[in-house]
């Protein structure tokens, strides 16, 4: 058991060495240009997804793009302030379920992959968004 524990801790140390300190997540995602590209990929992926697309039939894409950019920029400590509607107001009555939410998380991961965002940075963004889940599903 001890040798397995050592091996595991060694891996943790190695992964910790790769860690960059003290940059905002917004900057780590590539700043304005990087985040903008992620949002473009994200919208493209939603447009191609049979499960998620129906939720956007009434949405105006340009408005959605601006709102989601501002929201992501704000939540990653970027130089923006999201002043759109609350998550609860937007999603009430849309009947979004657990599976839809996770599908959207999959699409966001995929979009970040397409923009070559390193996996640890991807997890940090998902980690910032995860607490919003209860304001989005089954409401």
């Amino acid at each position, binding site marked *: *058991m001890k040798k397995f524990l050592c091996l595991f801790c060694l891996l943790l140390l190695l*992964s910790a060495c790769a860690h960059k300190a003290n940059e905002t997540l917004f900057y780590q995602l590539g700043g304005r240009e990087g985040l903008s590209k992620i949002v473009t990929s994200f919208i493209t992926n939603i447009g191609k997804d049979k499960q998620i697309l129906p939720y956007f039939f009434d949405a105006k894409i340009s408005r959605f793009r601006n709102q989601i950019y501002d929201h992501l920029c704000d939540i990653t400590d970027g130089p923006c302030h999201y002043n759109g509607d609350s998550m609860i107001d937007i999603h009430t009555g849309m009947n979004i379920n657990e599976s839809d939410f996770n599908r959207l998380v999959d699409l966001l991961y995929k979009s970040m992959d397409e923009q070559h965002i390193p996996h640890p*940075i991807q997890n*940090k963004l998902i980690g910032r968004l995860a607490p919003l889940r209860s304001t989005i599903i089954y409401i």
Partner: protein
Amino acid sequence: MLKLLTTFFLFFSTQLFAAEGKLIATPGVSQVEGSAGGGLVPWAQLAGYASQDEYAVNLFCSQGSVDDFRLRSCGAQLNLFDRVEFSLAEQTFRVNALDTEIKQQILGVKTRLYGDLVYSKWPMLSVGMQYKDLKDDTIAKALGADDNSGVDWYIATSKLHLGAIAGYNWFWNITARYTDANELGLLGFGGPNQDNYFMFEASTAILLSRELAFGIEYRQKPNNLGLDEDSWSDVFVAWLPNKSVSVTMAWLDLGKIAGAPDQDGLYLSLSGYF
């Protein structure tokens, strides 16, 4: 058993349904007694990718080969609405020294009491039982075991922390088990040295990507037969390339089994998710 599994599989596969409601890798894999878990330890997660609006059916086969023994375990799980998990497993334990095989069947039920692995504020919590029926009890009786069937009860708690370790997702699980099974039950239940029913089990893993997990496990075992049963541990790599299959490889350190010391070896497990 095989017939039952086939019927089970055919019934559900005709519906051409694949549950995909969970995030990839979050259900874990299948442990040797058939429950969702790591390789050795049952975890709080329920098997398969069913969300609370879906059901999932999974099949698995695992094999662990150490110096003097080999354990093969195959079975199936049914996850209903991510609330209840039923599992069936058949174990075939080969004892090289006696050139014989011991079979055991295990029926498991697990229910999720609270939480979500990723999103809930507190860790996920589940309770479960495993009813074990030893088919070949000659060796168990010879070693002094009291019974040829038994029930394990366990409580498991687990959590995945997003980006917790240098940005990588970190998973842990702790399980407490009430059991009188000797070597999973393959050497019967109870015995002359029985004094402790509560066993501690734990697993932890780091997800190097969305599809690849690297981790370790630990499992305490009772010493009812007075054969100095050791705790088990392993180090594993699990690859979950999509929501249909997973492959797990591990290196087992099982210590002393039925008097034979230093039982190390390779473990390989495959799961299919429908």
